[in-house]
């Protein structure tokens, strides 16, 4: 009964989150049993490159395209061509501006807001926070910045003592925090945009008193929240498995089950280790067998049907 060809376009390669997203797409395509072939364009490029990839997918005559947009507005023209050609377009991870496209996305603004708010509460509503952002000029980064600023506005006594861009690079993040620690400036909390476990490492290595740290649900960081003595922190979920959900949504639409809304937001959760309840949750989700860069939330209930073995095998239909 397999009958569909699905195209995938993604513009960041070699990052744990994106790799998990691709594997989730493959695993879900396999698990659904309705997909004969996946055409995956997965490389490092910009919005113009993504236009090229999407148009190539249109040339390949796929039935649906799952796209993680480099920029919401920048790829509108190709998505328009796709929907005109009768191709179902599902954007994951971020919204797109093409009105006929469906969106199933992590809420980046909410992601930052949730973590920052928790952090500021932990700090007792006052003090100095280190703000370690993602890549300057990336749209996900600026969305998160909005959420962070929103939380900041609610806590007038919290000050950003240091703001840097890690470029979502582990080594840069580590050097930056070590440099900052060396200045001797006091700080009461660290918010990170997902470059988290190296930050904890740096704190431990330099024997600095541990402060609350907020990161993402990467396997490495979740492990640290469970094991590092005296570390208080929270992981905000940002599941890479959203890709699998995108496939499910695309199939539903192809099969005639259109969702009521064009946009389906997957709200982030916050797992902290400040309470016993939270600790138990963190223990249950931890998964030391995963690559430390992979988010531990490898599936999304109601949206994905593959098993853990399937996503780890990372094989799509016909492979």
């Amino acid at each position, binding site marked *: 009964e397999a009958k569909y060809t699905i195209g995938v376009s993604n513009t960041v390669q070699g990052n744990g989150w994106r*790799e998990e997203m691709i594997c989730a797409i493959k695993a879900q395509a396999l698990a659904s049993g309705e997909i004969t072939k996946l055409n995956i364009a997965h490389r490092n490029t910009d919005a113009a490159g993504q236009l090229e990839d999407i148009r190539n997918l249109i040339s390949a005559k796929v039935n649906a395209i799952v796209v993680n947009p480099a920029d919401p507005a920048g790829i509108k023209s190709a998505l328009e061509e796709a929907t005109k050609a009768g191709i179902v377009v599902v954007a994951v991870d971020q919204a797109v501006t093409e009105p006929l496209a469906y969106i199933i996305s992590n809420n980046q603004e909410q992601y930052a807001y949730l973590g920052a708010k928790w952090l500021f509460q932990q700090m007792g509503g006052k003090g100095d926070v280190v703000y370690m952002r993602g890549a300057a000029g990336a749209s996900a980064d600026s969305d998160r910045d909005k959420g962070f600023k929103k939380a900041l506005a609610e806590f007038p006594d919290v000050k950003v003592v240091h703001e840097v861009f890690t470029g979502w690079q582990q*080594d840069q993040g580590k050097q930056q925090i070590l440099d*900052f620690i060396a200045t001797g400036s006091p700080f009461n909390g660290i918010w990170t945009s997902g470059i988290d476990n190296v930050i904890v490492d740096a704190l431990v290595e330099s024997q600095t008193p541990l402060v609350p740290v907020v990161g993402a649900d990467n396997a490495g960081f979740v492990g640290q929240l469970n094991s590092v003595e005296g570390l208080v922190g929270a992981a905000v979920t940002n599941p890479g498995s959203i890709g699998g959900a995108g496939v499910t949504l695309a199939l539903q639409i192809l099969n005639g089950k259109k969702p009521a809304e064009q946009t389906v937001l997957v709200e982030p959760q916050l797992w902290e280790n400040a309470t016993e309840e939270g600790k138990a949750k963190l223990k249950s989700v931890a998964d030391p067998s995963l690559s430390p860069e992979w988010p531990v939330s490898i599936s999304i209930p109601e949206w994905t049907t593959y098993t853990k073995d399937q996503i780890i095998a990372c094989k799509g239909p016909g492979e």
Partner: protein
Amino acid sequence: MSTTAIQPVPFGRRLKRFMADRPLIPLIILLVILVVVLQILRPGIVNERWLANTVKFAIPLAILAGCQTMTMLTGGIDLSVGTVATMSAFIMATQVVNHDPAVAILIALVPAVLIGLVNGIGVGVFRVHPLIMTLGTSLIGTGCLQVYQRTVIASGAKIPPFLAWLGTGLTYGVPNALLLFVPIAVLIVFTLNRTGFGRLLYAVGDNEGAARLSGVRYWQVITALYVISSVLAGITGLLYIGLIKAPSLSLAEPLVLPSVAAAVIGGTSIFGGRGGYTGTIIGALILTVLTTLLTILQMPEGARRILFGLIVLFVTAAYLRIIEDR
């Protein structure tokens, strides 16, 4: 007819000539100036801990810049060092789960040797431009790493304790990484100045035809060179993973352009035949201090980058001015 009397050389000129003969001195002065600026901007930052951090982060950069120095002496460049370092780091971290660390390290260095060999043969035998050759192999290497990482997603990753000790540890406040770096640096300096192979690197880069007429087989020198460069990059990867402790598929990529810059700031000519490693080490330190300086300064990211570019340009230009005795 009277010959013009030899006038006393003005002090400025003498100083300049003195510097030109000892190019390390102006470079060290530039480094010190940066450190002083840093100390002025953030009083108290220049402490023992900061020094240790700076050294720790400068070392991997300095070793990769050593690869660039050696290849640049022959008129080449090795853009695959970032990929090679990343590969060996990632492969080691994933293989060590199932193997003895020594075995894992050996396995991790295999791709380094292979890439070096391919680079060397491409450049030395087929005469492909090194820029393109190493760019191509680094693309291929990255692709292979992507394929590889899919096979080990479930196996997890570990950092052997002794690499972490080497990468991050301090003994009496001195970074342990120096245990690895000092011998490597001494070896590179010795190789360049006191061995036949080092002589050939300079000779081949300066005038390949002349070297040939003296009986030098170009392909031998180049192949050996790129293999050595790759192995050094592989070792850097192992050290770097000990420092960062997070295996990622782009771990050492951000070091590639700075490694080229460090070698050039250190006075090595990208056209070949001229330069040395001691300058490169200072170059790496300058870049590392500069990065710190910009991290510490609170300003928009855009302004930070602009400043970084301008300072790199200024330092290189000033240094060239000083050592050029014209």
